[in-house]
Structures are given as structure tokens and as C-alpha cells.
């Protein structure tokens, strides 16, 4: 993995703004990221707002019989999706601790998020 601290760029940035339960937004957003990666694009993920909850560890499927997203997050590395970012303000607003996250994601301030978006050819927001 190259130096992500200074190298924010890539082909496709997928922004995930919805929590893992209660709707299919996160799942369908992750599907788009996996397909982009399968097509050979360098994919970055940015977890924003409630989307940061997707990274909270120890999540099950929920009672509704739908597949959870935690196993999909575990598959990201297999698809070479290793550029993971989160909105640092959302992490604190949700009372989450970086150490308790399922995957390591780099916290970004608002100005860095603007740079991240500018450094990708395609941005898909879910």
C-alpha cells in the first residue's frame, strides 16, 4: 500500500452516507465499489455522516433477514480496495472510537475531503 497520507487520488471515489441497517443504500453503494474494482479501477471509499456507522465493529445481520454488510467490508481487501477514509467529525459526533472500528480508515477533515473528491475522476455518492 502506498503512502495514503499524501496520496489521496484514484479513479473512482464511492461516498457512503447511510448506516448499515434500515435501508439498502450501504449495500448497493458497496456493490458499486466492488464492481468498479473488478473492472480494474483504483477505488477509494469515504464514509461520511451516518455512513461511519458501517465501520462500527461486531455487527450482525439484524432481524429482517437481509444480508449484513460486515462480510462485504471484510471482502474489500480482496478487491484491492484499501484506500478507506472517514469524516472525522462524524466519528466524534457518533461517539465512536477509531480503535473499535472493523477496518482502519483514515480520518479526514472537511478541507481534506474536498481534496479527496477533487483527486478522483469519478465520484459516486450513496
Amino acid at each position: 500500500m502506498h503512502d495514503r497520507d499524501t496520496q489521496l487520488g484514484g479513479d473512482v471515489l464511492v461516498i457512503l452516507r447511510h448506516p448499515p441497517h434500515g435501508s439498502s443504500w450501504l449495500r448497493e453503494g458497496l456493490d458499486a465499489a466492488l464492481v468498479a474494482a473488478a473492472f480494474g479501477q483504483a477505488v477509494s471509499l469515504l464514509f461520511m455522516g451516518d455512513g461511519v456507522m458501517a465501520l462500527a465493529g461486531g455487527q450482525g445481520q439484524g432481524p429482517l433477514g437481509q444480508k449484513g454488510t460486515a462480510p462485504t467490508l471484510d471482502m474489500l481487501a480482496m478487491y484491492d480496495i484499501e484506500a478507506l477514509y472517514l469524516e472525522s467529525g462524524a466519528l466524534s459526533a457518533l461517539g465512536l472510537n477509531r480503535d473499535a472500528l472493523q477496518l482502519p480508515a483514515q480520518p479526514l477533515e472537511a478541507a481534506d475531503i474536498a481534496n479527496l473528491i477533487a483527486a478522483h475522476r469519478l465520484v459516486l455518492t450513496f
Partner: protein
Amino acid sequence: MRYALLVQGPPYSRQAAHSALRFARALLARGHTLESVFFYHDGVYNAARLAAPPQDEPHLVDAWRALHDEHGTRLQVCIAAALRRGLLDEREASRHGKTGHSVEPPFELTGLGQLIDLGLGCDRLVTFSP
């Protein structure tokens, strides 16, 4: 400029698809090209051929179809999102043993890879979500 739209809102209960249609007409009126409208998430309901809204309300399915007929815009529907929501063309209906189909040309069921291609190939991909 070559545009593509990503529509993720359903045709009736949310504004997103209506805004997308107005944006589509506006950019065409300004002389731009609209390559494709890609329907994903609940946006796939825009392809429901059985939609029958009251006559004094907008008929989005027909409006998208008109966009295709008049400007050659492709109407692409994510197949995975569509099948989950009961939107099947004749081929998929027969493959899944269903007695009817709910999607017909010019709407085409296709993969998410097409969305990535559009996003990277067009000058602008504009997303409309609820």
C-alpha cells in the same frame, strides 16, 4: 458536453427522478448530449412498464421513453437492483419462471459495470438521489 445521469429515486413518491428529468430536458435544450440515464437503487422503478398514474399526473416511464425516442438517450437499468424489486424483462421473466414481464425496451437491463463506464467515459455524470 456529453452527460449521463444516475437516477436513484422512484418515479412517484420522491422528487429525485422528476428533478433528473427536468435536468435532462434542460441540458438537451442547451445543445448538450445525454448519452444515458442509469437507474439504480429505487430508481429502477422508473422502468416499470405497468406504471399507470392518473392522467393529470406526470408519467415518468413515458417521459423517459420519449427522451430515448427523441434524443437516442439509452435507458439502462441495473439488473441486480431490478430483479430484487420485481422488475424483469421478457428474458429474465422466462429465466425465473415468471408469467409476466415488467420491463421492456427501450429500457435495458444491464450491469453496474456500465455505470462505471459511463462515469469514466462521459464529461459529466450527475446523480439524483432521494
